[in-house]
């Protein structure tokens, strides 16, 4: 009998099916690898199993019994735990204290005092059982990334864990540390714990998994047994063979045009971007594709002056530039369409007008006051141009739909009359119509000899839209492919090949 069995699981966000008709099962002591490209539904699936989301349809059975998981607490009670890429620890608490988060503390009668000794004994027992070397008197912030991973694993094992979901657990670990983690996973499965291992790192998936389940566009795309699995097969399941481009995209070869942006050996202080070089010609839409965590957003931010740079050169329109702030980037004709509209693109409690003219206030100001009539007429002109649907320019942006908000973001960018667009997930969470409009707008900009850098986690969008595509892996560009000829298999091959 399987430990967890889900049938016809379904989850919708608005009109978008994040998951549909997912059926799978996991047995005790089994390691199941879960793979799929960005947005394939892995996270949504995890969130349903752990009670963060409620499914719109389908059944979940636990040890053969139908269950509903309404909250992470319910999931814990069943014995389902998850360890994310980001650690969920309290930095100032010691290892012992962190272990007992969410667990009943052993106490004297009436909660008079916590029995620290008893806490320690049990923690040490678990430590021994798992074969972990870890000083639990250290606070979480004093621990190294792998130590924190160990601590989270211990915490999970203290709670009678039946199913452990590991979501990109090795992202911050070195190879050696990863080995330690793998040994732990083996011990856990020996004790009957089932593991659901989610990762972009294929070699880990191949090494650990008894079975590999592939998701594609929110659907089950296939299951491979350990023996029959290889990279080519997995990728063929991950990519949509019957996918057809939305429209036959116009593409240009603009390599003969002057170089608009040249980036040489760029590295950021925090190490998220390392030794990256690429160029953008006038008239080009250049795509940057990479898996989650490859450093896509960080690269754009570094170019835009919003992320401190360690080393490297940049030239804009042939002139060497040292761009240290967004202000300088704007002055040099760049504009960033940020990934997160709500936290970086717009100021939600201000009006459309106030948002749109913010980077260009000097232009509308006499030096003393803002010429509001001129401001309003310009805003209206750009709203019409971008086809923003709103009651007036005085409407708060928070009242607009996602698509219209994004159009305001673009209108704001257009007001600066930029030469180079840096787009980070520019069509994320917008409707199909707006998505098309944004694509058309960018193509028009390219035709007018401006440049576009287009970052998207949607592989098909990158393939459809871009003239050239750079592939980013672990903070550095590893390949360049022409947009017209590349296939999604090819891009994913590059991403997964380490």
């Amino acid at each position, binding site marked *: 009998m399987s430990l967890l069995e889900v049938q016809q699981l379904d989850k919708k966000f608005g009109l978008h099916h994040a998951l549909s008709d997912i059926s799978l099962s996991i047995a005790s002591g089994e390691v199941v690898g879960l793979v799929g490209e960005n947005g394939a539904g892995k996270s949504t699936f995890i969130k349903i199993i752990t009670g963060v989301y409620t499914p719109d349809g389908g059944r979940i059975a636990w040890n053969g019994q139908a269950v509903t998981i309404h909250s992470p607490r319910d999931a814990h009670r069943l014995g389902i735990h998850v360890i994310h890429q980001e650690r969920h620890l309290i930095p100032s608490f010691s290892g012992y204290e962190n272990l007992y988060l969410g667990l009943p503390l052993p106490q004297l009668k009436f909660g008079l005092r916590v029995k620290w000794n008893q806490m320690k004994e049990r923690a040490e027992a678990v430590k021994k059982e798992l074969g972990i070397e870890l000083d639990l008197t250290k606070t979480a912030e004093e621990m190294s990334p792998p130590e924190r991973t160990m601590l989270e694993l211990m915490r999970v094992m203290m709670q009678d864990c039946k199913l452990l979901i590991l979501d990109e657990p090795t992202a911050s670990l070195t190879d050696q540390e990863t080995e330690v983690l793998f040994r732990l996973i083996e011990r856990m499965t020996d004790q009957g714990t089932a593991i659901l291992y989610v990762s972009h790192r294929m070699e880990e998936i191949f090494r650990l998994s008894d079975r590999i389940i592939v998701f594609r566009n929110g659907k089950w795309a296939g299951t491979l047994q350990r023996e029959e699995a290889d990279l080519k097969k997995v990728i063929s399941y991950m990519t949509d063979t019957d996918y057809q481009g939305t429209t036959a995209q116009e593409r240009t070869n603009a390599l003969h045009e002057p170089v608009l942006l040249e980036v040489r050996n760029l590295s950021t202080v925090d190490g998220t971007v390392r030794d990256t070089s690429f160029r953008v010609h006038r008239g080009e839409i250049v795509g940057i594709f990479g898996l989650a965590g490859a450093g896509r957003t960080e690269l754009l931010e570094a170019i*835009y002056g*919003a992320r401190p740079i360690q080393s490297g050169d940049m030239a804009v329109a042939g002139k060497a530039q040292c761009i240290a*702030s*967004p*202000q300088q*980037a*704007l*002055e040099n004709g760049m504009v*960033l369409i*940020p990934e997160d509209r709500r*936290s*970086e*693109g*717009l*100021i*939600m*409690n*201000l009006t459309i007008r*106030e948002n749109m003219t*913010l*980077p260009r*206030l*000097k232009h*509308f*100001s006499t030096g*003393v*006051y*803002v010429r*509001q009539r001129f401001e309003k007429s310009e805003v209206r002109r750009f709203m019409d141009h971008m086809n923003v*649907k*709103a*009651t007036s320019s005085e*409407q708060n942006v928070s*009242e*607009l*739909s996602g698509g*219209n908000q994004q159009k305001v973001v673009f209108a*704001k960018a257009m007001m600066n009359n930029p030469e180079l667009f840096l787009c980070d997930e520019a069509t994320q969470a917008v409707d199909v119509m707006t998505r098309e409009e944004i694509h058309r707008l960018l193509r028009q900009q390219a035709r007018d000899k401006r440049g576009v850098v287009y970052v998207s986690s949607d592989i098909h969008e990158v393939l459809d839209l871009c003239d050239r595509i750079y592939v980013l892996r672990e903070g550095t560009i590893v390949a360049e492919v022409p947009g017209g000829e590349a296939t999604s298999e090819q891009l994913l091959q590059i991403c997964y090949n380490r």
Partner: protein
Amino acid sequence: METTKITKSSSSIEWGKIFRSYGTVIAGVIITIIFSVLNPDSFATLDNAINISRQISFLVIIGIGATIVMSVSEFDLSIGAIASLGGVIAAKIAASGGPIWIAFLAPVLVALVVGFINGWIVTQFRVLSFITTLAMSTILGGFTFWLTGGATIFENIPDSFRLVGQKSLLGIPLLSIVMLLITILFWYVMTQTAFGRRLYAIGGNESASRIAGLRVKWNKNAAFALGAALAALTGVLMASRLGSAHPTAGNGLFLQAYAAAYLGMTSFKEGVPNIWGTFVGAAIIGILANGLTIMQVPTFMQDVITGLIVIAAVIMQKFGRGSR
């Protein structure tokens, strides 16, 4: 389709919106009417109205200072101490025979620097403004004590220093005129200039403002400096009014300034600190104090009532927001 939906929903909540935007003003009017009915001879007179306008002038000016700092989503807890220090510096200069214009100007300049330091610490080291300005308040309190030896400065203060605080023009106190001019000036700065727009943008969303190319740190520092300058001016005007400066004269104003600003956030532009809102908030607090004093309600009871009204206003505002 979306457009029509939005118009529809906004027309159906028109009354609620009016009440939310002007509720505080309406409450102020109601309070005034109640006092007028209860004390027609002493409260509802022109003389008393002029009196109230003078009484609230300090609170309005320091409240505007608090509002400017709040517009960038920060707090300056040192404005009370700055006001005290400002009064003391002014009185010292005036008492030592210095030119009056210097007595008025010097404290404001000192405060600009103090405010800028506050802002610099907050923006450069990313320290909570709460802690920074609380510590600054203690430091300034120490300075003020050192300057005065803890005693009130009242000797040798020339009449010319008292002019602004005590004289009237055409029956209207100069203090009230200064208050009105400052209110109008900063209403203009905050709503009509690019600078004011930037402050509100930063207060609304700092990282989006940064991406939009705004100099976030510089603007925040400027907000702190302006807030401090207005606090110092308040202290100077108080010293001018009383003809003396006490080392803790301004301290009590600090909590009331924030009460006024919070009351103000419930009016005109709901949820946003705004200049006229703060004016109305300060006026309500002033009217309450005046009316309750006329009705011989003891001071401690006045404090209780004022506190309750601020809490009620803030809760009302939460409700208003929730229904959005």
